[in-house]
């Protein structure tokens, strides 16, 4: 494939295009103006992941914005996947930011609805939700492929994006979840990352539905994984994080292990085991490791899962 045939020509797109198994990570910008935190996380992950998600006010808590954070990460030699939620921006701001992302060399974008304001630190905020995630995907595709703004106006230079989306195989109604992925494919999504998987049987069941519809051939599917620091974090995710399905076996496995180096060591094991297991599932094209505020765990997990060295693409 020549460079001109790529949609955006990002490292992530080329890895998928070469048929290689992709690994992405996640970096949450800090809740202060200290940009060195982002640089530090980038240095930690460089060489271990193919690209890193930069969250957009994750869990509705104010942080350094995803675009400048993405630029910082790329200045440190790691490709960014800029997350964009529909919660904080209307269609004007989204398109303006995405034109800016292109000009600054950020070409991977992940389109999300966004956690509700009530979960974050500004629960009195007005939620925007001008578009939903499916509308956002379609808008970016039309900008890229049709050189058109959402209103239909044409632009001289189209931005190039490799368009990502998320899906939660553990959300309800379960039977709608593969349909929702299909809607996102129809809207123009190129790759998809799942919500953190703890319930592997349910994920596999969902993948059966995905394969039955042939969706795995139309989009690159990345299985989402989160290493657990301790039983407290596992319980928190089970009870308080929207859309999470943490089976009791996971809680039981972490129970009784002393918090600290022991629980940290144990918490990485299920992630490594799951990567190995999920990589064998037909239609899984990569893994997305979400080590929330624990980026230093990623190198060991990637290495233990046998995913090093990361491929280089021309």
């Amino acid at each position, binding site marked *: 494939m020549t460079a001109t045939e790529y949609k955006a020509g990002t490292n992530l797109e080329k890895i998928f295009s070469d048929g290689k198994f992709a690994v992405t990570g996640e970096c949450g910008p800090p809740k202060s103006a200290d940009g060195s935190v982002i640089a530090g996380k980038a240095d930690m992950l460089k060489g271990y992941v193919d690209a890193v998600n930069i969250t957009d006010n994750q869990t509705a808590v104010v942080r350094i914005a995803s675009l400048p954070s993405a630029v910082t990460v790329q200045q440190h030699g790691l490709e960014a996947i800029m997350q964009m939620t*529909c*919660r904080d921006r209307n*269609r004007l701001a989204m398109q303006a930011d995405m034109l800016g992302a292109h000009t600054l060399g950020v070409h991977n974008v992940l389109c999300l*609805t*966004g*956690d*509700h304001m*009530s*979960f974050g630190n500004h629960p009195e905020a007005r*939620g925007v*939700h*001008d*578009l*939903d*995630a*499916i*509308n956002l995907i*379609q*808008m970016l595709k039309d900008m890229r492929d049709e050189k058109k703004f*959402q209103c239909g106006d044409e632009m001289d230079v189209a931005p190039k994006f490799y368009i990502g989306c*998320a*899906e*939660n195989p*553990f*959300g*309800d*109604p379960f039977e*709608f979840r593969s*349909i*929702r992925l*299909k*809607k996102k494919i*129809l*809207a123009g999504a190129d790759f998809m990352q799942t*919500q953190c998987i703890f319930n592997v049987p349910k994920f596999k069941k969902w993948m059966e539905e995905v394969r039955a519809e042939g969706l795995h051939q139309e989009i690159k599917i990345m299985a989402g994984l989160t290493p657990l620091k301790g039983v407290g974090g596992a319980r928190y995710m089970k009870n308080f994080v*929207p*859309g999470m399905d943490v089976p009791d076996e996971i809680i039981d496995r972490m129970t009784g292990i002393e918090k600290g180096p022991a629980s940290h060591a144990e918490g990485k094991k299920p992630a490594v085991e799951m990567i190995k297991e999920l990589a064998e599932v037909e239609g899984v094209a990569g893994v997305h490791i979400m080590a929330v505020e624990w980026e230093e765990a990623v190198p060991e997990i990637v290495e233990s899962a046998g995913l090093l060295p990361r491929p280089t693409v021309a």
Partner: protein
Amino acid sequence: MITAERKPLDEIIELVGDKKKILVAGCDTCVAICLTGGEKEAEILASELRIKAQQDGREVEVEHTAAIRQCEWEYLDMIAEKVEAADVVVSMACGIGIQSMAEKFSPRLVMPAVNTNMLGMPQEHAVWLERCGACGDCVIGETAGICPVVRCSKSLMNGPCGGSHDGLCEVTGPDKEEIDCAWHLIWERLKEQGREEMMIKNRPPKKWNLSSSGGPRKMVREEAKPV
């Protein structure tokens, strides 16, 4: 119907300030049905204001009345005399009625005694649920008679987000009560109707300019205008 909740007494007293002659004006339509601002509630608020003033050693004259509908000029004529005799009107009507009063009797002070909160329906006795966002571009023909604009916490147009679980929304109400996931309800009812395809097609971005984002709205029925 339009629903409203009464403001706390202290807030109403602060709005009234040092005015001596107070008229509490109820409205006998929507806010009466939701047991917030009809004539009965106006009488109760008037009593509360009198008692509090007595406790605080303030001298006030508090009357109460009610219009059949505060949002229509002709019903305001019927209470005009009482309004004009007062220093301040404490209106228990919805935001529409309060503004009608303020405009009709301008520059007389008209203060709100309620917070207007939604277009809702009584789901059961004494429980009201929001049902319409007056968005100006109704989609419920495609969503099994269930409004995603106000019943989905994120006003999504293309199905439930990843936070939908066990038929419930990821968001809880002010008292941590569970909220139904509107898109789960839509999915289930569409299935019953054999119209699941309505959820499969991608719905385009909504035209919010037809809602309040387009500025204050106006409706004219030319054919109904007097000749």
